[in-house]
């Protein structure tokens, strides 16, 4: 039997993994790029995939719905992520870890993470339903909102989507930060106490730096997820009313599958992908530079 050399264990599986990635992710990506340069459509007549160069991209640049959708997604990210991080931070600091009470509370934080994206959207669709939603009833009872439907009204639909996202992901941030917080050495806090530092000082000088890595992790995860957010929005509002909650993934879906213009959808997808890669690379480059400098 051919023996595995001690230092090369895992190289075989790593090769398989990379091959799978190339096949299942990269190949479709290349195919998509090819489509974006054609006029392929499976439902529109006479569109059998002739090469049309960059026409799709030109169309995209003047597609106001596309840009609005992109803007909406950015707004979504800019609003949701900081709120999730801040609330997550506060909660992670407030939760009593070692008491038996903490042992009961902390697992309950996991509940939102057990739901599938679809389920989250559907449950909140019920809770926020204009005619019989539980939350709507109490919000109206306290006079906070009028008689209009929350999900059906252009102004509040976006807020609803934000709310649902915050509900779903704040516990995740809280737990990552909680795990990181317990990893900060006790001795640091003791030194701070000896130096006479108050609670605010301790927070900014010891807790926050110790959580830096965890905060970055949360940030990275949430940002990449925002652009791919589909299940939840689809189940909650379908992108409506109109296009008021049409985040970019939803528009991509509609462009490709509902309008049936696969080539155009591919072009849009490619543009999005370029944007994502550019952003994350810049982000990682900044982080990497900071790490190397310190």
């Amino acid at each position, binding site marked *: 039997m051919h023996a595995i050399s001690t230092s*090369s264990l*895992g190289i075989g599986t790593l090769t398989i993994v990379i091959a799978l990635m190339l096949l299942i992710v990269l190949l479709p990506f290349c195919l998509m790029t090819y489509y974006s340069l054609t006029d392929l459509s499976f439902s529109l007549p006479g569109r059998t995939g002739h090469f049309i160069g960059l026409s799709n991209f030109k169309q995209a640049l003047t597609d106001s719905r596309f840009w609005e959708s992109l803007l909406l997604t950015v707004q979504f990210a800019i609003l949701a992520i900081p709120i999730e991080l801040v609330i997550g931070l506060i909660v992670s600091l407030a939760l009593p870890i070692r008491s038996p009470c903490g042992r009961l509370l902390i697992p309950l934080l996991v509940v939102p993470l057990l739901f*599938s994206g679809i389920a989250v959207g559907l449950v909140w669709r019920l809770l926020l339903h204009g*005619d019989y939603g539980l939350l709507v009833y109490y919000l109206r009872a306290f006079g906070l909102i009028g008689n209009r439907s929350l999900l059906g009204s252009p102004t509040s639909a976006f807020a609803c989507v934000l709310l649902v996202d915050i509900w779903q992901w704040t516990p995740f941030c809280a737990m990552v930060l909680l*795990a990181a917080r317990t990893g900060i050495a006790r001795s640091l806090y003791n030194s701070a106490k000896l130096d006479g530092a108050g609670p605010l000082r301790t927070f900014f000088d010891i807790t926050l730096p110790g959580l830096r890595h965890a905060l970055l992790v949360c940030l990275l995860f949430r940002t990449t997820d925002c652009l791919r957010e589909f299940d939840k929005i689809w189940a909650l509002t379908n992108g409506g009313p109109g296009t008021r909650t049409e985040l970019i993934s939803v528009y991509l879906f509609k462009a490709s599958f509902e309008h049936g213009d696969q080539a155009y959808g591919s072009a849009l997808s490619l543009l999005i992908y370029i944007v994502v890669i550019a952003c994350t690379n810049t982000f990682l480059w900044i982080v990497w530079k900071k790490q190397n400098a310190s």
Partner: protein
Amino acid sequence: MLVKMARSLQWLLSYLTVTMCILPAIWLAMCAFKTRLEITAWPPIFIFVPTFANFSTLNANHNLGLLTSNSLIVACGTTVFTLLLGLPSSFYFSRIRNQIRQNLLLFLLSTKMVPLIAIALPFYMLFTTIGLHGNLVGLIVAQSVACLPLTIWLMSGFFADIPTEIYWAAQLDGLSARQSFWYILVRVAAPGVGVSVIFTVIFSWNDYLVASILTTAETRTLTAELPILVTQSVTQWGQLCSGIILSLLPISLLALLARRYFIEGITSGTLKKF
């Protein structure tokens, strides 16, 4: 005095957050046992006679047994496949020199950046060409590809912390390199493996996009079936709630079983690697 106020504020916030977290789940559970009239009642009803009607209707209209077993098979298959490929890879990864590692890591993570909608069509066509469409194996492979980057990233951190000497000692004790990896190293990295398993199972079970693209009626998973209950005209809330509850059951069971180990992981500071 101020400290006391701050402390009570802390408690208030904690309870508030936890309440917000479980409220939708509680309401969902209640609605699963209500009749349609009770669900759509205004003001909302809290006292009612629970009934299993939703569950039986759901089972009558959709083959729950098949759906659940599909989901189960796929979740288990994805976990096993991901671990089989991911664990040795992340071990090798944890021992590579830095430069190549950075690049490989970026490559792996970048595959997670692509919105799946973007490549949905070519994805569908690829799998149809290979013959893995409408096939649970194809779904397992596709979901594993989605889970592998995170697993490798997570586990390579854990493996990097385990001294190579343990791996060597196991071989000196007489195990082959492969055996010493699977019997000893994986056991020592158990906390990380546990986290990976939980993430993979939850991801696979709750996945909608990949499952809806790659499955047909016979191979559909539970989660992929749910949105069918939402139609243009009428939403079958009762069946929907019961369906979601059923879908949540196995996951909740898993979370319950892993509860103690999970709390220990968070509160002991060992998960900070993640």
